[in-house]
């Protein structure tokens, strides 16, 4: 595309293809809102104009491709972020790569940064492996015998493999595991199997609405006192209709971010005000993605895809805004090999119902452990050629 080097004079347009309808809509809305808040902050800081163009993918990857294409072709979007599910993330990320549009995607699958790593795809979320790293030792500390229930799709399957390996390395026993069709409303047969296995702890590597179905059925069967429970990639449980009582039974959780962190109070309140949803991990990713994309564009002094990508790849985050939200002593950076944002990951536990904060926004979990830097995120299994 010769000649027409648009510099940053006018406007940077950011597409946000994400789930705005269907069960995943709250996640999408949070990503959108987080991004919009970041845009406001950036506009103030740099005196530029930023437009965010949201679009509904309904969590369908094909629809997502249609959306991002429309954003770029019709609205002139320069970069994009969003996704919600891994399948959608991969779809928009690969679309971006083929069309030279940098995209920050939010999905937990290792494929996003692993086997498929594409040169314009950047992963703001922690991959499964990153979340397993601090969580598995905590689980092994808690109980010796674990039973794994995992959602039967790529995300659940890779999580299951990662946990099995990590738990065994930590010296815990896997006394059984079972794949649960995704989605499922009926967890009783699987809970029967778990009970039958003689485990002390039950790991719920289940996604979406299944988090609600499983915990509510655990409560209905009054299993909470007899077992420890672990949940993988716990996001805002409230959004799945999990009530506070169910949250309180979750003893070990992997989480990418939590409002219980030592985060500036005014940021949380501003966000709670700004968005329909209480602050949770998706807000942070939306915020971080937009923040990083815009700063890269400013550094490159260009809205051209290639320039922004080059700026972002391997970049060490310097601005305080990110460190305020992800408090750490280590450097946060975009690893050059796989475009993963290297940042801390957390292990949390559900607070007792009486200790849960509900006002001005929900805080139902405590952060128990943090794992940072390379320790949490070993080299990508398949080296990428980016």
């Amino acid at each position, binding site marked *: 595309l010769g000649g027409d080097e648009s510099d940053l004079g006018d406007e940077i347009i950011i597409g946000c293809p994400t789930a705005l*309808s*269907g*069960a*995943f*809509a*709250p996640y999408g809305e949070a990503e959108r809102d987080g991004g919009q808040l970041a845009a406001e902050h950036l506009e103030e800081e740099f005196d530029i104009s930023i437009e965010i163009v949201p679009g509904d993918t309904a969590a369908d990857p094909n629809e997502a491709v249609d959306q991002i294409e429309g954003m770029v072709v019709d609205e002139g979007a320069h970069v994009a972020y969003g996704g919600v599910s891994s399948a959608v993330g991969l779809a928009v990320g690969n679309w971006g790569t083929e069309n030279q549009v940098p995209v920050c995607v939010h999905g937990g699958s290792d494929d996003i940064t692993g086997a498929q790593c594409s040169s314009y795809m950047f992963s703001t979320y922690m991959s499964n492996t990153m979340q397993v790293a601090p969580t598995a030792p905590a689980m092994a500390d808690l109980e010796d015998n674990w039973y794994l229930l995992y959602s*039967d799709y790529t995300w659940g399957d890779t999580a299951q493999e990662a946990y099995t390996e990590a738990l065994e390395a930590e010296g815990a026993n896997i006394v059984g595991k*079972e*794949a*649960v*069709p*995704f*989605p*499922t*409303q*009926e967890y*009783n*047969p699987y809970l*029967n*199997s778990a*009970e*039958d296995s003689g485990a002390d702890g039950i790991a719920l590597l289940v996604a979406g*609405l299944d988090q*609600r*179905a499983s915990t*509510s*059925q655990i*409560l*209905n*069967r*009054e299993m909470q006192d007899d077992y420890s429970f672990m949940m993988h990639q716990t996001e805002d449980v409230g*959004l*799945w*209709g*999990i*009530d506070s009582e169910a949250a309180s039974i979750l003893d070990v959780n992997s989480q990418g971010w939590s409002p219980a962190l030592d985060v500036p109070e005014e940021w949380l309140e501003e966000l709670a005000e700004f968005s329909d949803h209480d602050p949770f991990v998706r807000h942070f990713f939306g915020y971080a993605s937009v923040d990083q994309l815009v700063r890269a564009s400013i550094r490159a002094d260009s809205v051209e895809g290639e320039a922004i990508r080059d700026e972002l790849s391997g970049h060490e985050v310097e601005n305080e805004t990110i460190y305020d939200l992800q408090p750490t002593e280590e450097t946060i950076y975009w690893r050059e090999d796989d475009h993963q944002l290297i940042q801390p990951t957390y292990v949390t536990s559900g607070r007792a119902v009486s200790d849960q904060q509900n006002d001005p926004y929900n805080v139902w979990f405590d952060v128990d452990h943090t794992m940072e830097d390379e320790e949490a995120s070993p080299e990508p299994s398949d080296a990428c050629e980016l």
Partner: protein
Amino acid sequence: MATATLERFTLGSRSTAARALLVLTIALLLVTLAVRPRLFVQNLIGGIAYGMVLALIALGLALILGLLGVVNFAHGGLFMLGAYGAYEVVALQALPFWAALVIVPVAVGLLGVAMEVSVLRRLYGENPIIGLLATFGIFVMIEEAARARWGGTPLTFGVPPVLRGSVPIGFGQIATLRLVTVLIASLIIVGTYLLMYRTDFGLTIRAGLQDREMAEFIGIDIPTRFTIVFFLGAAMAGLAGVLRGAEVGMDLTIGFEYVLLAFVIVIVGGVGSIFGSVVSGLLIGIGVFVGPTVVRALGTVTGIEALNVSGIGSVVPYIIMLVVLLVRPRGLFGEEGLLE
């Protein structure tokens, strides 16, 4: 009636395929019982309870399909509205759950009446596919309306303390709420059966389905009766929604998910047979619970790794449907000539 019934019940035993299938199933179950006795029994009990829940969800559909000949896809939407309605009553209006148990089915039933009067009334006697399509459209509308009112976020509401927790039975526990659901389902099933096959009301409705105009010629007020049946069917969907919503909460996807399942149940049971839907609900409930255990047990016994396929629970209903229809093309207790 006597000869027809007789024929229906004996058909299965005549076919060797059916017999072989039965023997195979029993053998598999015995193997499982031997390998995992405790789990097997637990799942059997759980499966029966779940089956009753499924039967309750499917019953309204079976009623409207069997009696009015309408393939009511909107059943899923009404079911979903039952769940959201309970949320509205309990969580937003702060009324007791017991009130929801009465108000919501009535409200959903009335919505059903509105549907019947405005749309379906015009489609009786048409090809059932057309009713299916019209109600599909209504289903889409209901889903979107629910999204507008309650948003996309999945929701739950609290139930009274007496319904929380569980009751010990035999080998394990069963959630109190589910036990209550099973009881209510049983009552409704018996009531429906009596209404339809033991009363003149039921007889006039069946006559109306077969030849609507003629039924009016002999003095039956068919429109009113059809509306009543539709009310009952819709109210049953609403009730099932309330109970299911209380147990596992609600979101916008449950409508589609359960209406497909309910269809499978009705088809397996045989269109036109209330009793068939109940049997098939149980069959599928048990299948979903016990199926994976059976496959695993088989894997253990034979040592074949390939049998450790995971997550087959979701396709079990479809496998059951396929097998049943291949052996008995009209479902377990289906009447000949209906919807063909």
